[in-house]
């Protein structure tokens, strides 16, 4: 893969570190441990990881809301450490907490945001954004009367008033019902189609799979994998047979499966084993036979193409907790 030119990059991060000072007698804590990544202009870039992996900390550093402890970051071509004020002119931010004043109406809040960003035609832009996020009719109601989904959409609109080059969305669908989640996904696609680069953090695998052109997986403050969703899955090169087992059966099952034809590798997968094989459909019967011959009766056997969760599992040895939204949209 050729290295993109600087002008093509919306975000460029080298050796990014966030270090929190430990309390009295305690060690410092590195929440982000030397991340390198690039996001090209016009991309939807996903930042996937479990809770506490360092996603929000990274976003807050890139949005100038947290000082960078070490490393370099450029957003929209501007050095974040050197000129944070200039970075703020080019970015839109919708953080995990929807930052909306409940005592204002949707229109008042958007108009204030337009005025703070010195938008030329605040009333026109406000009407345009309200229509975009489907809140024109609710615009004159105070925000405290809005549903969670409406608040999230309004929050998205407030991040767009100045047509930012780069939009940061920190877990934009966490806590939303499936219908609201689908609406937000649709908005994200529409905003991206209009030319805005989107940096999106999520703990939902399907969200990353559906929305992102490329993604990076972060765990414990470190990047463990990066690429397009398809290339990451293809790198695993195998189908996954997940076998439900008791904990005490893991070791004998691994031994029994060691002779499985076409097997790539086996990892622990919560309450069972994930068996990576070249031809899953052909191998299922062999897996069951080998286990039964060893005196092990698997509780469940499932066959799947590799998912991003498998990519995460292969990279970290764990699955993402809460990685699946309650229903796919």
């Amino acid at each position, binding site marked *: 893969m050729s290295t993109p030119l600087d002008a093509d990059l919306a975000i460029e991060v080298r050796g990014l570190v966030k270090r929190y000072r430990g309390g009295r007698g305690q060690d410092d804590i590195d929440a982000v441990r030397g991340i390198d990544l690039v996001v090209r202009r016009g991309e939807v870039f996903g930042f996937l990881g479990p809770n506490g992996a360092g996603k929000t900390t990274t976003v807050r550093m890139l949005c100038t*809301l947290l000082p960078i402890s070490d490393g370099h970051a450029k957003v929209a071509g501007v050095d974040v450490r050197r000129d944070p004020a200039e970075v703020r002119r080019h970015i839109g931010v919708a*953080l995990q907490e*929807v930052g909306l004043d409940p005592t204002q109406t949707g229109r008042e809040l958007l108009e204030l*945001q337009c005025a*703070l960003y010195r938008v030329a035609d605040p009333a026109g832009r406000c009407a345009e954004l309200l229509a975009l996020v489907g809140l024109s009719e609710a615009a004159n109601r105070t925000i405290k009367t809005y549903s969670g989904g409406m608040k999230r959409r309004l929050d998205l609109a407030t991040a767009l008033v100045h047509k930012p080059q780069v939009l940061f969305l920190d877990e934009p669908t966490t806590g939303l019902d499936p219908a609201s989640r689908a609406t937000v996904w649709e908005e994200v696609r529409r905003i991206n189609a209009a030319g805005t680069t989107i940096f999106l953090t999520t703990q939902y695998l399907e969200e990353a799979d559906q929305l992102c052109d490329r993604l990076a997986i972060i765990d414990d403050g470190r990047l463990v994998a990066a690429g397009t969703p398809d290339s990451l899955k293809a790198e695993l090169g195998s189908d996954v047979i997940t076998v439900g087992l008791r904990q005490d059966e893991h070791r004998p099952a691994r031994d029994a499966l060691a002779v499985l034809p076409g097997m790539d590798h086996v990892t622990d997968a919560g309450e069972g084993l994930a068996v990576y094989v070249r031809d899953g459909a052909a191998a299922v019967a062999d897996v069951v036979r080998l286990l039964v011959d060893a005196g092990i009766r698997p509780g469940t056997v499932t066959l799947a193409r590799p998912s991003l969760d498998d990519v995460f599992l292969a990279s970290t040895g764990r699955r993402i907790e809460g990685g699946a939204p309650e229903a796919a949209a």
Partner: protein
Amino acid sequence: MNETLLLARRAVREVWRLPAATLPAVFIPVFFMVVNIGQVNRIFPPSTPFLQGQHYVAFQVPVSLVFAVSSATSGLAMVTDIDIGYLDKLLAAPIRRTAIVWGRLAADLVRGIAVSTLVLIVGFLFGARVRSGVPGVVLLILLAALWGVAYAGIAMAIALKTKNVQTTNASFIIFFPLLFLTPNFVPLELLTGPLRAVARLNPVSYVITGLRDLVLYPDIHWGSLGACVLTIVLTGLVLTALSLRALNRFAE
């Protein structure tokens, strides 16, 4: 429009839409004023020398004014902004970060004027008169409101430092010793020695005395008025600087 004015307008709207956050600040001082009058009106009749021929309520009005405007309301609003994530939104916007504090203080000025006017009206209803006339009334309202602005910095600094509603609310308690270690019931000369010494060191004494002279005397007492203005300016400078520093540290 200037970003400070934009944020002030938002804060004023918030005050207007959440009267429950401001009304206790009016009710408690008015309640104290009424109770105090009821208790000591006969002890201090209008013939008492330091009352200058007025009812005791006139002596108490400045205390109630200062009490009413010295609230933690802006600090509590700041904690709410932190909690709901709105402060992050402002910090990520291309505005001067100081405007966030100045906007709140500008709204405090508007709230202070409204609250002071209400307290003064109650004082008038109980028989108080402002002997320095209309200029005195204007000065009373304005200076009381400005004191509220000056004092608001402490609650905002605590809010930004602790990010905690209870602690910020408790900052209001700091004001009680400041209010009561003053010549609030009788003039400074009548206080006992130790209390008089403490009251002389207490900046709130100079604010109360400056305002009180506007109520009791027909002509402006420039000495007490100057001390009052100087106290407000110095308090404002120190506490606003503290809150601006707390905001910078919060952002870092």
